[in-house]
């Protein structure tokens, strides 16, 4: 008898098979991987360390793309900014910050929102009311406003930006997790788990959580993109990171004054990088939504 183990498809394998069905999603995933790899490897692949003032030559300021430095013969593929920074290097380093901020804030906010949402959905009653009213209050303010207020109080800095983005995002996850938990807890396998006398914590985290995850993964994928663009917005407004360590948003802001004088590259290339990053994330997220949507499942 042939082993059935051979044709057992784990849920992960089934997921990957369905994900591969869309070329656009694959393209998005590929671009995203390259962007993340480039961001992670920035210190090794960037021609210049844009944060090291010793490597920056102010005399090379505002050179157009492809220009060669008259001082030391370096080629600036994407031009330089007003301080003589190599734009390619600045973009790579900036993307590093954007990806870091987007991922960290999303993961932490997801964890917080997931736990609170599951508890609210599973326990119900007063705990549910308390958690969800706090989330409602939070969601009734525009997220940019909350982030602005927090950063105004806390001051600028990488950690504080992440904190502000977590504060803005957790409520989305809490809501999604709660609604998923309410649907799942009515199902018989949860009743059966209670009937087996499993401890409540195990029921919530081992049984409820994995079944509530698909909608949260979709929301998280979209939220990474919105966290990155929110960080860029805040940096653009000058509330994000220090000028010496520019993220993509700050780079755009730096070139903004030169747009009308024809020095388009200072704003445009970081903007394009941001655009590509966000479009890639959204392509991946869209396919995730299609694959993980139970209504579109053909099981």
């Amino acid at each position, binding site marked *: 008898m042939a082993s059935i183990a051979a044709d057992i498809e784990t849920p992960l394998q089934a997921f990957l098979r369905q994900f591969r069905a869309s070329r656009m999603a694959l393209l998005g995933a590929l671009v995203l991987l390259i962007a993340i790899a480039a961001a992670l490897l920035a210190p090794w692949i960037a021609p210049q360390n844009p944060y090291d003032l010793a490597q920056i030559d102010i005399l090379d300021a505002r050179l157009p793309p492809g220009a060669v430095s008259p001082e030391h013969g370096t080629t600036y593929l994407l031009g330089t900014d007003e301080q003589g920074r190599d734009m390619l290097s600045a973009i790579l380093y900036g993307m590093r910050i954007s990806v870091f901020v987007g991922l960290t804030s999303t993961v932490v906010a997801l964890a917080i929102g997931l736990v609170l949402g599951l508890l609210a959905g599973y326990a119900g009653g007063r705990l549910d009311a308390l958690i969800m009213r706090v989330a409602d209050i939070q969601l009734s303010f525009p997220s940019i406003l909350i982030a602005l207020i927090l950063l105004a109080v806390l001051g600028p800095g990488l950690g504080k930006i992440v904190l502000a983005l977590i504060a803005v995002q957790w409520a989305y996850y809490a809501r999604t997790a709660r609604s998923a938990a309410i649907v799942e807890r009515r199902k018989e396998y949860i*009743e059966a788990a209670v009937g087996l006398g499993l*401890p409540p914590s195990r029921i919530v985290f081992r*049984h409820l959580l994995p079944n509530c995850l698909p909608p949260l993964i979709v929301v998280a994928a979209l939220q990474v993109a919105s966290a990155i663009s929110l960080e860029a917005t805040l940096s653009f407004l000058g509330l994000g990171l220090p000028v010496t360590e520019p993220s993509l948003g700050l780079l755009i802001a730096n070139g903004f004054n030169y747009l009308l004088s024809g020095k388009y590259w200072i704003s445009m290339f970081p903007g394009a990088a941001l655009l590509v990053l966000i479009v890639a994330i959204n392509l991946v997220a869209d396919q995730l939504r299609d694959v993980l949507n139970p209504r579109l499942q053909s099981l």
Partner: protein
Amino acid sequence: MNSDLSEQTVLSVEHLQMQFATRGGVLKAVDDVSFSVRRGEILGIVGESGSGKSMTAYSIMRLIDAPGKIVGGRVLLDGQNLLELPEEQMRRVRGKRIAMIFQDPMMTLNPVLRIDTQMIEALRAHQSLGKAQARAMARDALARVGMSAPDERLLAYPHQLSGGMRQRVAIAIALLNRPELIICDEPTTALDVTIQGQILNEMQTLCRESGTALIWITHDLAVVAGLADKVCVMYGGKIVESGAVQQVLEQPRHPYTGGLIASSPSRNRRGQPLRQIAGAMPSLAELPSGCPFRTRCPHATAICATMPPVELQGQHMWRCFHPLQQTTGAMHG
């Protein structure tokens, strides 16, 4: 089997009452239900949908969600009233001393966890066991319920198993902690008749061998006839008739039981039209006063508007002012 042990009462339910408090008023889903099961004994609870049979089971397990509430009676497991236990102690009873097997095998296993994970955690929730030891016990349990290639099934996800196999897994999980009582809520309804027969047979053997008491909830009289020792017939949240299976099925006294038997297909009445019980069971909100069956009962008179008293004849109990004479309805299991 040791006759002393077989006399031991495992579960005794006394005057159990469970209600739903709704805006439309109080609905008595389980109304003054009493029965008991002994070691190795199989009790069938029969009734239509909405008769309160499942709610009785959920009440025993204390799995009633708001707005449902147990408002009276006692559920004695080896003399200990489960309704008075703190929740944490009740958790230790569930799955350990009383196991439950649910109706739909497609739904009772967690779709994202492998079979071994689900079996091992059920064991380790109640016993301090190593992973390897628990896995070996899980494997044995699967083999005991007649699963072929148990080692490979352990690694499967629920959706990779057929309905019958999943129900076997659910039964194996129920057997894991060697409970004193297993409550089965229509566990074979969703299965093919051949698989149903096998599972009934195996459950019967397993209970007889291990002395586990079994409560089998079903709407199918034929299942009860072949499986159970005792039967309770429920209607409108009340037990209308109970007793030894043979006695109740061959000499039903309550018109509802008689109607159920007459409406079951049987080889002896081939070619004759099946008799039906007129009408449908009223919802709990519309139950008449007195005997719940009186609105559909051909024998009902004015007196039926008051609750009929319990009539006892040995072990045979019924609640009816106009019991059937002992010649009607015969069913040979």
